[in-house]
């Protein structure tokens, strides 16, 4: 199949679904579908660091926050100027331009943040790296809390709603295709070699430093994109949405689904998001039940539900990480 046919078909299907979905499944389910999409982007991108490169990051919420706030600031503060410059376009096209600019800014800002966090990963390993990434995530959150122009502790309100099912799932598609192509390329083999044995990888001539930073940057960029889509859907941002517990949930998605498998990350994102909604029926026991289920899954199936299983196998998967 030619590539452009695939993307054209995808665009048509997404646009068709966007126009009918809300009516079909109702506003509440629609919102869950959107959240699932955003979590898929986050989980698949986190999987690049944690699952494929074997570095342990618990700071994904930080990059997510950077993206969300950058994009919202660009649109809120730069919005009027951009709209004036694109006044000749119809309203929908203006919105699309605005959102795309926001997304690009979000990806760049989050990528820079990822680069800044990737640098200490050169020196730190394992649990030390984990706690530093967690620390960076919290530092980012506290900084946002203290910047008044983006709402600080009040939260950032007045963000126009620009993203919807179409944009979120276009983002999902782009993320999945990019990460899939990436991990099946020479870059991906470099990532996986670092995960499996860093010293051997280095001895074989893999520039481990460069690839580790690269995986951080790419992963953060996608987290930024997810943040942008999130902010422009909910129209309101608060630093508490980006607590380290958010990072925990993302790690849960990746590990429950199966570390080092894109399908696993997708399954994990869908499962965790949907389960948390379904468990609402249990009222106050929602998170109690969720946590018990989580513990049991990890005890009885430590490799995650899918393990390293993959649908589009282009090569033999490596055994799960230690």
């Amino acid at each position, binding site marked *: 199949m030619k590539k452009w046919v695939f993307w054209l078909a995808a665009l048509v299907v997404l646009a068709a679904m966007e126009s009918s979905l809300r009516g079909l499944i109702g506003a509440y389910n629609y919102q869950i579908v959107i959240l699932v999409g955003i979590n898929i982007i986050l989980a698949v991108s986190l999987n690049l660091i944690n699952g494929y490169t074997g570095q342990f990051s618990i700071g994904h919420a930080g990059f997510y926050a950077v993206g969300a706030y950058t994009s919202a600031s660009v649109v809120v503060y730069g919005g009027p100027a951009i709209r004036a410059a694109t006044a000749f376009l119809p309203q929908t096209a203006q919105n699309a331009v605005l959102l795309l600019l926001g997304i690009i800014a979000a990806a760049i800002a989050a990528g820079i943040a990822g680069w800044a966090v990737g640098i200490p990963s050169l020196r730190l390993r394992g649990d030390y790296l984990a*706690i530093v990434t967690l620390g960076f995530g919290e530092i980012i959150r506290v900084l946002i809390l203290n910047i008044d122009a983006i709402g600080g502790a009040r939260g950032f309100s007045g963000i126009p709603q620009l993203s919807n099912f179409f944009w979120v799932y276009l983002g999902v598609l782009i993320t999945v295709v990019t990460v899939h192509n990436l991990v099946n390329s020479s870059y991906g083999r470099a990532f996986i070699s670092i995960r499996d044995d860093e010293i051997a990888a280095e001895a074989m001539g893999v520039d481990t430093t460069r690839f580790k930073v690269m995986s951080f940057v790419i992963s953060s960029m996608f987290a930024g994109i997810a943040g942008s889509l999130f902010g422009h859907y909910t129209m309101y941002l608060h630093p508490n949405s980006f607590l380290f517990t958010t990072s925990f949930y993302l790690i849960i998605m990746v590990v429950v689904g199966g570390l080092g498998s894109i399908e696993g990350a997708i399954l994990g994102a869908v499962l965790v998001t949907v389960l948390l909604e379904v468990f609402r029926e249990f009222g106050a*026991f929602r998170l109690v039940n969720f946590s018990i289920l989580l513990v049991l899954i990890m005890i009885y199936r430590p490799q995650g539900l899918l393990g390293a299983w993959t649908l589009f196998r282009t090569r033999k998967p490596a055994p799960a990480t230690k």
Partner: protein
Amino acid sequence: METFLQQVINGISQGSAYALIALGYTMVYGVLRLINFAHGDVYMFGAFMGYYLANIPWIKSGVGTSAAGAVFVMLGAMVLSAGLGILIERFAYRPGRGPTRFTLAFWLGLLGAGGGQMAGQTFTSVVLGAFAGIAAGVVLELLGIRPVRQESRLALLIIAIGVSLFLENGGQQAFGADPKFFPQIIPTTSFKVGPLDLDSQRVIVLLVSLVLMVVLNIIVNYTKTGKAMRAVSFNLDAAKLMGINTDRIIAFTFALGSALAAAGGILVSLLYPRIDPLMGVMPGLKAFVAAVLGGIGNIPGAMIGGLIIGMAEVMAVGYGQSTYRDAIAFVILVLILLLRPAGIMGKGMIEKV
């Protein structure tokens, strides 16, 4: 100068509380190489156990007036939390390391108890639910559903996060989500030492943490169990081959760490009496930062790390902006790890190929 000294004293008492929690992290990390994210919640549990013990009717009269009351509350909470630590180890982390019995029965029993509470809201329904869950768990186990032997440290970490979520949310169910006020278990008296204002709480916090750390040091360095603990943390497999019952030592480590966390919880509650089920999240995280700062797995390191974090936080609030309080610990962490990746007292590990 006086305010500075005053802040130093505040910092030391805050820091010694962090140090007590950090010790549990570092000991568990030492034996299992596991970041026990549930540890901060054990600290919360300790504070709540202290609260309930101090409110037992026949204790209540003695609390706040006699030393025996305070000691009872403190030791009681430590023992109960040690029990919780052992339970967590037995039913969450040990099955995460290899096959053990009654895991499903334990968790399904809890699930059933929750279900019973939701369905009937009576004691009988809770007990019935719990029994149904336990029965289901035993049957499933007889059918062959057992934990698998695994080497995955990551799965263990997710289990720790799961247990932490469980304790936080279970705590909100069991203790109520609204904050409670910790009773004054020791009488407050203020006095002056030179130009400094001291109160009995701060002095007690300092003294008790000091005593606990000395006791811990004696246990770890001068008893047979302590020797076994050090052996396990040096090399678990070799310790096993030398005839050490490693599972028992690990359980003992959890008990010890949890008791210290409970002590920390009560001491902090003396200074800041507001307690709620989520109170352990941030101190837990910061105590972990303290443990890493000192060099994780290193007991004196945890004490030093705790003091540094506590001191820095108090200084930041006293002289800087209190809104940055939660970031201070992490900024120090990042800076120190960039200079000394193994922490202050940690030994850099040489990687053998």
